[in-house]
């Protein structure tokens, strides 16, 4: 089977490997801290987009609670580090466990709901958890957030063990992000070809039919939600050690959930490479427009453009940017004269 699926996805896999290779040399080609920083964000958001995609794309359950899990990972790690100097490699596990618990708490009530009711319920849940983060400020630091002091090479805590590096070009963080992003793609790829993937797609195609055939939709969704939550929490741990500050306003906010989902939806829901493509398009665009349009009027022009991009893509490419590739691919396929069935094209 593996062989067959490989053949199916040959083009996609080759492209991905090429991308990874290019990405691997990127930081050495341009020794540019800012570009690396942007790239790191692209990769982390692609990773989070992949996580969201499992439940939101393949399962078509538009969840707006992503930021909650992201924040859980970030907070657990930074708190354990501040109080017990725990290495992120250890603290990421309790983080993921908490994320799973939270996923169950949010999922159990919400997966009984369909469509918009689900979306709004997740927003409500996310708001509650964010507000509680703020309220119990005694140990979450409230909206002050938590940040840890600058730790230089002199400090014993400095070093890979705590994901603390001082490379001016941020390369260590870049490769951490790149590696993790690649892993998330693989995770999604595996899920897609396992029972979970099939059942998620079955459910979002026709929940009643799926249930009549013995597929327990709420269980399947919950599984997907849990996996997605763990991935987000993991990303939170990695991200916070690069940013070195965590606060609810930025990590647990509704905006963060939106940005995560946008990356995946614009790129292409229910496709392995959609989130990556989405991140590769939206984040640089935002950066460029912010850099060049910042002085226009009273500012904010960059975000206007961002909004416009979203609107335009939704209108022209309702299946996301990757659908462009698919059209191109099927065109090639037709020219090559062999009909192929959507390898990369998962999304409906």
């Amino acid at each position: 089977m593996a062989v067959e699926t490989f053949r199916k996805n040959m083009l996609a896999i080759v492209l991905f490997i090429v991308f990874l290779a290019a990405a691997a040399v990127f930081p050495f080609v341009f020794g540019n801290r800012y570009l690396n920083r942007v790239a790191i964000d692209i990769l982390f958001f692609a990773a989070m987009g992949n996580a969201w995609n499992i439940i939101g794309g393949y399962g078509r359950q538009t969840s707006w609670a992503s930021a909650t899990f992201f924040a859980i990972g970030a907070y657990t790690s930074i708190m354990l580090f501040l109080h017990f100097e725990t290495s992120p490699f250890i603290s990421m596990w309790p983080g993921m466990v908490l994320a799973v618990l939270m996923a169950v708490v949010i999922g159990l009530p919400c997966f009984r709901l369909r469509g918009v009711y689900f979306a709004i319920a997740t927003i409500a849940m996310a708001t509650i958890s964010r507000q509680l983060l703020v309220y119990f400020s005694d140990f979450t630091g409230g909206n002050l957030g938590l940040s840890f002091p600058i730790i230089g090479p002199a400090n014993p805590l400095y070093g890979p063990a705590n994901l603390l590096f001082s490379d001016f070009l941020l390369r260590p963080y870049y490769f951490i992000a790149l590696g993790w992003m690649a892993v998330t793609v693989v995770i999604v790829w595996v899920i897609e070809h396992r029972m979970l993937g099939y059942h998620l797609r079955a459910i979002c195609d026709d929940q009643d039919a799926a249930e009549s055939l013995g597929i327990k939709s709420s269980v399947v969704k919950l599984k997907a939600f849990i996996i997605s939550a763990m991935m987000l929490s993991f990303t939170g741990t990695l991200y916070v050690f690069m940013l070195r500050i965590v606060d609810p306003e930025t990590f647990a906010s509704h905006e963060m959930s939106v940005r995560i989902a946008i990356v995946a939806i614009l790129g292409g829901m229910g496709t392995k490479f959609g989130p990556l493509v989405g991140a590769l398009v939206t984040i640089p665009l935002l950066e460029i427009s912010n850099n060049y349009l910042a002085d226009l009027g009273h500012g904010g022009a960059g975000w206007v453009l961002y909004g416009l991009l979203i609107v335009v893509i939704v209108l022209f490419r309702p299946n996301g940017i990757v659908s462009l590739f698919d059209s191109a691919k099927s065109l090639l396929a037709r020219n090559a004269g062999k009909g192929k069935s959507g390898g990369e094209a998962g999304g409906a």
Partner: protein
Amino acid sequence: MVHNEVSGEKKKVFEVVELDKSFAGVHAVNKFSFDVYEGEILGLIGPNGCGKSTSVNLMTGVYKQDSGSIIYYAADGTKHTLERQSPPMRARMGIGRTFQTPKPFSDMTVFDNIFAVAMLYNKSLKEARNVTEEIIEFAGFRQIAGEKSTKLPIEKRKWMDMTRVLATKPRILMLDECLAGLTPSEIEESLEIVRKINRRGITILFIEHVMSAVANLCERVVVMLEGKFLTEGIPANVMKEPEVIKAYLGEDYAV
């Protein structure tokens, strides 16, 4: 672990007693009782809106009955009283069904449609694969196995629905109006498939309002009228009964 009650020589699959269900005042199913015996093709007939589909939805757990009992006898003779088991749980007990409108997983190929289900009922993906292949053969879907199910014509979708259920290794299969909107020739093929499925030892509950179709498929029919049990028996005799004819007045016999 009650022993399987034997009526005549046939084992029961379903024993529906005094089933009752109302929606916002509308009394859809009214003290409706009937039995389904192992291996038979039972026709459940009656004019449109007489509660046939509702009964199926009650038996498969889509709705919960207001009162009355649904008893299901598993293959090993175990007796299950169906009350609040969810549709998936019932499906896993061997209760299969199709819907009036075909519900393929449009995003998937025909093969994957069946494979997705087979995975659930087989240990390894390999077994699942074999089962799927077997069903594809059985249904004669060889050449369309790779097609996206949305691309299929209506009758093929219906047949795929029917055969997809086989992946759940069902004990009984409830076919809800599976002939609606088909041409005579397609109807013939459909009936043939139903018979083939039945020959695999799967009991069939065949819901239909078109009498003639039922006549040459079922050895036994139950007639429903306004949610109530009207009569049952061999199709030929049943159709002679005056109240049945009355019930069907204005109904369209032809197909």
